[in-house]
């Protein structure tokens, strides 16, 4: 085992980073660097190893092997010093149900040894930032899922962190609540906060991440900017065809040559092409009668499908 912080300017530097549990390899020798000021994403399905990686970065889980440095320090020996400069939004909210909204922020600030008057002022500012100032004196429990999530994000910002870790920040939220969270995260990014997030939502990663890695079965299978990944692993456009149930097997061969690549999913057929409308016309010319056709831009979902043969949300 060789775990030591190395000379690097990256905020997070990992080489051969692994996490093994008794009968499971959760993270298998991954390499990545996160630079100051960027928004970096771990994308992958449930069980890919995203949360295990985040827990190691957050210094609450010890790497089994490999090198990891966070903020230039060693997570094993400098845990409290590193955590003092991190903001962590865990997958499941860990709010204090017995305390009021503003007290949640106040007590959390105290864990960072922030003086009482500063803690009070910051609680007020952060509640304004996440648009919960009118709920400051309310109980936590009746808040909606999106509000609780925003409160958790506000709490993670109470120590003005250099690095914000978000584990699936919008899973389970309705579209409106998700966009509100994204908007706040985007503002933080503008302010220069370094953000590391995990997600299994393509649109989330595309909206927020400058750079990301795609994880599958404990390994990194691709990395780059969302655009470069799409350019590399997908075509410009995708034609989605839906046929009547059980019609797909009868298609055998009939779509040959229309697109660069054809992906047959249980519920639809995807044709990867530079020109979706032309492909749709070709499909009709061959006498095929899909129930619906949709031309769209390629997304990270298509990248993932290409890399693993599976869709992200299973």
């Amino acid at each position, binding site marked *: 085992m060789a775990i030591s912080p190395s000379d690097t300017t990256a905020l997070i530097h990992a080489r051969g980073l692994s996490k093994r549990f008794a009968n499971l390899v959760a993270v298998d020798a991954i390499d990545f660097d996160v630079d100051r000021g960027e928004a970096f994403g771990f994308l992958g399905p449930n069980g890919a190893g995203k949360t295990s990686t985040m827990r190691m970065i957050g210094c*609450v889980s010890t790497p089994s092997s490999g090198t990891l440095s966070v903020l230039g320090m060693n997570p094993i020996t400098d845990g*409290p*010093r590193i*955590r003092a400069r*991190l903001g962590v939004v865990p997958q*499941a909210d*860990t709010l*204090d149900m017995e305390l009021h909204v503003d007290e949640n922020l106040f*007590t959390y600030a105290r*864990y960072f040894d922030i003086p009482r008057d500063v803690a009070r002022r910051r609680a007020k500012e952060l509640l304004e930032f996440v648009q919960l100032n009118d709920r400051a004196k309310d109980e936590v429990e009746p808040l909606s899922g999106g509000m609780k999530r925003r409160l958790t994000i506000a709490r993670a910002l109470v120590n003005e962190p250099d690095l914000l870790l978000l584990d699936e920040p919008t899973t389970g939220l309705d579209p409106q609540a998700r966009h509100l969270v994204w908007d706040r995260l985007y503002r933080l990014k503008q302010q220069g906060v370094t953000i590391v997030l995990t997600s299994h939502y393509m649109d989330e990663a595309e909206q927020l991440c400058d750079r990301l890695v795609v994880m599958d079965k404990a390994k990194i299978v691709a990395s780059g900017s969302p655009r470069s990944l799409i350019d590399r692993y997908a075509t410009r456009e995708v034609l989605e065809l839906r046929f009547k149930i059980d019609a797909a097997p009868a298609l055998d061969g009939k779509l040959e040559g229309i697109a660069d690549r054809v992906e047959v999913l249980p519920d639809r057929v995807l044709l990867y092409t530079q020109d979706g409308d032309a492909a749709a016309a070709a499909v009709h010319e061959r006498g095929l009668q899909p129930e619906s056709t949709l031309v769209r831009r390629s997304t990270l979902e298509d990248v993932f499908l290409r890399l693993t043969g599976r869709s992200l949300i299973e």
Partner: protein
Amino acid sequence: MIGTWRVLEHHLMVYRRTWKGGMFVSFASPILFLAAMGIGLGSLIARGPVRTVGGVSYLAFLAPGLLAATAMQTAFVEETYPIMAKLQWLRTYDGMLATPLTIGNLLGGEIGWLAVRQAITAITFFIVLVIFGTVSSVAAVLMIPVAVLNGLAFGLPIMAFSATQRKDKGFPVIGRFIITPLFLLGGVFFPIQRLPQLAQVIAWLTPLAHSVALARSLAIGGSNGSAAIHLAVPATYVVVGIAAAGITLRRRLVQ
């Protein structure tokens, strides 16, 4: 050290929000027990052939034991479901560990809080005893630290156990097979000497019998074995409990 104080500060902040409900129970419970058992049953005993227990009225005999046993029950209540909630249901500890706080701070804060909680309960109980007129010596006030020690002696091993549990099914088992039998047979309601020999040996291996004996000798005088041993046994449970809780909490929270 600062971190430990921060965790305790959090407990006090939560308590400030919840104390009123608990305070009613803290007063009502001893009043009910002392009225029913001490005065009600006690009046029957006073009319019977024995008249007194250990040379005093049954109420005076019962009161110190009940004080110590209440600490045991408070420990059970505080260190089972609330610990499970902080570990698993609300994940309070995960939230704390995402800050500079350490497992040592969590444990230190919990110990501090349990001591405060026990002191509040014991003081409340003591006030009730004064009202019932069973306190006749200044030394009786020392029953409060004895009760706190007893509460820690039960609370810390129970906390260590709770940190190993994924479901709450084990808690009623502790209640039925340890807490309730000790409450009924551990020297609170009648002298341990009335028990069969084997049961006496078992009773003296628990913190409760020693705390009851010590509290009783402080309240009504008379020696009941060595005070040093009555302190040493609960203290041993405290030390072992802290060590065990340190291990089980770490195993549970840092993977």
